[in-house]
């Protein structure tokens, strides 16, 4: 996108909604709609090649990147605004619903695989949930955001090989998806740690963690559910990437089997998803604030708008121009507003007074004969009485 047609230059409001370690997230609104601005800080950046690919494709469940680049020396991304709820904020998701979401996300990731793109940072905050407007599809739509991360991803969700500096891959995304599934159904992270190294250590011994046991101990899941989910943990949460699913198609098949194993039936699963969608509809201000929900948020532009927010030098001239304009207006009103009478009008009044007084007032200064000097007055002969 050229500089002249940047979405950011047409933004009229900009609200900071999240301050992260590497970037701040803003909700920006303008004539062309609402968008999410990711404003990188502290030298952070995104993977340009991934972002450029994503700008050219439209995949259901993938948040569209509208614009990217450097602004005032800072990298930035502009996403479509998704009116939904971050999956981080929804608490426990019923297992059938979570499996439905998993299949949707897997499909999106599968489509991304086709163009050689991997997410690299799947975590609850990067999956937005909303009611699916397509009535024929799964009632809840999961949309992935925040692609192109440079680092290993979010601790607690990143695959073991990512800690070793390997790039994001289908397998690493599958691992993250497994951690995500656990979070969705339990409302908790599978690995809980305070330090990065601690996360790394826990992730590296993922094979020794029995997810089934954890679910059983929580007491929130039936044996059927634990049993149905078990193949998924084995297909996703493996330390060795090669031991995970071959691809997302295989994952989808496993998830489909798991859904069937739950024994709730399609109708029951659909009803649960509908109910969850309704809950989301009520909650959807939790992630990114929709219209009117920005009250209390600080209006803050992290960048200078071109043609709107000028540089300091331009601003100085603008102030001077404004001062000049005010001065001009003051002078104008001073001249026009206080000009009580016109000098020509006064001249006409004086003239009228002078000339009219001649014939009406014999003693006035313009009378002719009587006031003429005696040297030019004619002495009229006095007729004889004879």
């Amino acid at each position, binding site marked *: 996108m050229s500089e002249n047609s940047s979405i950011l230059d047409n933004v009229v409001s900009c609200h900071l909604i999240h301050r992260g370690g590497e970037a701040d997230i803003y909700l920006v609104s303008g004539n062309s709609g609402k968008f999410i601005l990711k404003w990188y800080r502290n030298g952070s950046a995104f993977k340009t090649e991934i972002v450029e690919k994503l700008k050219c494709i439209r995949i259901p469940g993938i948040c569209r990147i509208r614009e990217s680049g450097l602004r005032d020396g800072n990298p930035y991304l502009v996403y479509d605004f998704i009116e939904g709820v971050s999956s981080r904020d929804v608490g426990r998701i019923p297992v059938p619903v979570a499996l439905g979401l998993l299949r949707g996300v897997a499909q999106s990731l599968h489509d991304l695989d086709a163009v050689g793109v991997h997410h690299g940072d799947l975590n609850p905050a990067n999956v937005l949930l909303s009611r699916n407007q397509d009535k024929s599809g799964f009632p809840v739509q999961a949309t992935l955001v925040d692609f192109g991360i440079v680092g290993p991803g979010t601790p607690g969700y990143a695959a073991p090989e990512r800690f070793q500096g390997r790039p994001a891959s289908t397998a690493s995304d599958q691992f993250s998806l497994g951690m995500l599934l656990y979070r969705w159904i339990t409302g908790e992270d599978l690995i809980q740690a305070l330090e990065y190294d601690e996360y790394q250590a826990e992730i590296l011994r993922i094979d020794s963690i029995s997810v089934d046991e954890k679910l059983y101990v929580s007491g929130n899941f039936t044996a059927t559910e634990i049993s149905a989910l078990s193949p998924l943990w084995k297909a996703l949460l493996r330390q060795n990437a090669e031991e995970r699913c071959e691809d997302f198609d295989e994952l989808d098949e496993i998830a489909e089997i798991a859904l069937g194993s739950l024994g709730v039936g399609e109708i029951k699963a659909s009803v649960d998803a509908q109910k969850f969608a309704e809950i989301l509809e009520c909650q959807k201000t939790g992630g990114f604030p929709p219209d009117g929900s920005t009250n209390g948020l600080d209006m803050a532009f992290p960048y200078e708008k071109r043609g709107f927010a000028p540089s300091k030098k331009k601003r100085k001239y603008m102030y001077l121009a404004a001062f000049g304009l005010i001065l*001009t207006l003051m002078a104008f009103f001073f001249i026009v507003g*206080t000009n009580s009478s016109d000098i020509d009008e006064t001249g006409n*009044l004086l003239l009228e007074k002078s000339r009219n007084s001649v014939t009406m007032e014999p003693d006035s200064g313009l009378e002719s*004969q009587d006031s003429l000097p005696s040297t030019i007055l004619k002495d009229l002969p006095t007729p004889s009485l004879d």
Partner: protein
Amino acid sequence: MATFAFALLLAACVENDVRRGNDALRIGDYDRAVTSFNKALDADPAHRDARYGLALSYYAIAEASERLRVPTFDLWSQAAKEFRILSNIDSSGKINANYSTCLFYLARAALKRDGSVDVVPVLDQSIQLDSLNYFSYNLKALILAKSNVPDNLNTAKNIYIHIITHDPDFVSAYINLGNIYWDEGDVEAAWDTWSAGLQKSPKNQSLMYWTHVAEDSLKAMVLSGRL
């Protein structure tokens, strides 16, 4: 920008002085009007309204002095000088009537001061500025009639006839035209002229007197058989 702002401020001050001068002039505070207009002209000598205001102020001062019957030549000279400068700034014609009247007054004041001075060129300029200024016509005709040159006398008569034709209410023209006829011995024409003037201004003392005199003369002439 600063220069522009300063220029605006200066212009605002000049306009303010002109406004003050105009207000003073309108209420008859002529000295204050002269001060204000002069102040404006110090900042902007070519300011049309300030110059016109100053000319009108001198005009008003001189006219007020006319009523006091004191010598006014210097005052009218001052006013005429300002009008002359103003004519270099303003060629719109808006000032011509006042300038013309000022020149009439100047010519008359000059004659009062020295009856032998030739003011006809001044009156001609006055007439050229305002062809409806019959006071200048009238005074010019009086001067021509006084010269006793036959051609000038005829010219004077034509001027009076011109005045009466174009402005029948200009009473002085009837009196002065009747005077010429009377001086020439044409009592009947004099009576005709004066009585015509008396119809226009029945209370004019001069016309009443001289119409009566002419009537008596005509009666005497009839009685004596000369008419």
